[in-house]
């Protein structure tokens, strides 16, 4: 029998309470307890980045963080990216550049790209590729993703 834990955290700016098992991952909490299914599960072992979120501003794989670990922390997921109906520039540019096909990798790539641009508003192509090395995409061949991130960065620098 696993003990259930009561966790209080902030998700995309809103205070959230949940109950979870001690061994339940943050990924499972987001998807199964909070029904925020934007965050995807690919591998469950830290290799694919589909589950990327930020915890206190740090980009992490939510499959390698326990739900109990985020007590008192601030979690940001893909659901917090658009402002109502208005897409984030990264989301808009992913659409314009056709930087997605099946889309399973997209939430993770968007969250990871946003974390990059918050730190580095003008990344080189090499910097983009290294930063996104932990996000696998089986469909696009990455080129369009890198272009979309560079284009979004350009637009975000102008406003």
């Amino acid at each position, binding site marked *: 029998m696993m003990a259930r834990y009561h966790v209080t955290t902030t998700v995309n700016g809103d205070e959230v309470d949940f109950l979870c098992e*001690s061994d339940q991952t943050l990924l499972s909490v987001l998807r199964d307890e909070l029904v925020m299914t934007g965050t995807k599960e690919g591998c469950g072992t*830290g290799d694919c980045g589909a589950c990327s979120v930020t915890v206190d501003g740090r980009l*992490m794989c939510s*499959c390698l963080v326990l739900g109990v670990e985020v007590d008192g922390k601030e979690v940001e997921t893909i659901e917090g990216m658009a402002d109502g109906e208005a897409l984030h520039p990264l989301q808009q540019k992913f659409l314009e550049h056709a930087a997605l096909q099946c889309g399973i990798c997209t939430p993770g790539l968007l969250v990871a790209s946003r974390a990059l641009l918050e730190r580095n508003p003008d990344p080189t192509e090499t910097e983009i590729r290294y930063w996104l090395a932990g996000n696998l995409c089986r469909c696009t061949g990455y080129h369009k993703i890198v272009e979309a991130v560079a284009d979004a960065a350009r637009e975000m620098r102008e406003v």
Partner: protein
Amino acid sequence: MRYEAPASLDAATRLLADAGGAARVLAGGTDLLIQMRADLVEPTVLVDVKNIAEMREIAEEGGRFRLGAAVTGMEIMEHEGFNAAWPGIVDGAKLIGSIQIRGGATRGGNLCNASPAADSVPALIAADAIARIIGPDGRRAAPVEDIATAPGRTSLAAGEIVVSFDLPEREPRSGDAYLRFTPRTEMDIAVVGVGVNLALDEAGMCVAARVALGAVAERALLVDEAAAALIGTRVDDAALAALSAAASAACRPIDDKRGTKEFRIEVAGVLAERAARIALERAEQG
């Protein structure tokens, strides 16, 4: 399984002692959570050490750094003073996994997981880092090369925690470097890893050196013969050739899908030379 996140070393040590061997320390979780999911380890208590201030900070006291065992890779990479003093340790931190993995992964976890290919370990050994340890019998200290003993095994007693790593004072004209060989540039496991740390005198003569090899034996190795090849030389081509030969000679690797024994032995020599050149360049600049 019970989860605890104590704020003090005392509380953490007590929790571990009370659980009598069935508890595990949780740092970044990037090894442990995967092993738990695969049922390779089944702790009854998880002691999360990330709320313990002493383990989470990079402190500098009188020119000496103390690196908390639960400081993450990203935090190390962002610390300017530490980068300036110990770029080779930062090389190791930078190579681990992806940005996401480095957001969690710690030096304590990398060392205590005891993979012979752990990328943080050779540079820590080359730096002469001393692990500060706390356990049911109090505090002790041990050189980093004495912690991992074999894949998945350490010399830590039940309930012991690595708290931090003490680094020696950084002499002028000293530098370190870590290089690894992997088939891919990111997200791969070292086939060979080499850490080199050296110091020069005013005339450019090497007065101190330490060389450590990863992934070529059951644990990371401190190779005195390789260091001896550099000490008393100008780290010229002849010295580097001797270093290379000594590094290759110290290897006792396995064959696996990522490299044969012969390949690892040869690559260890080549990488030792390249890492020494980088360490030399850094020493000349610093």
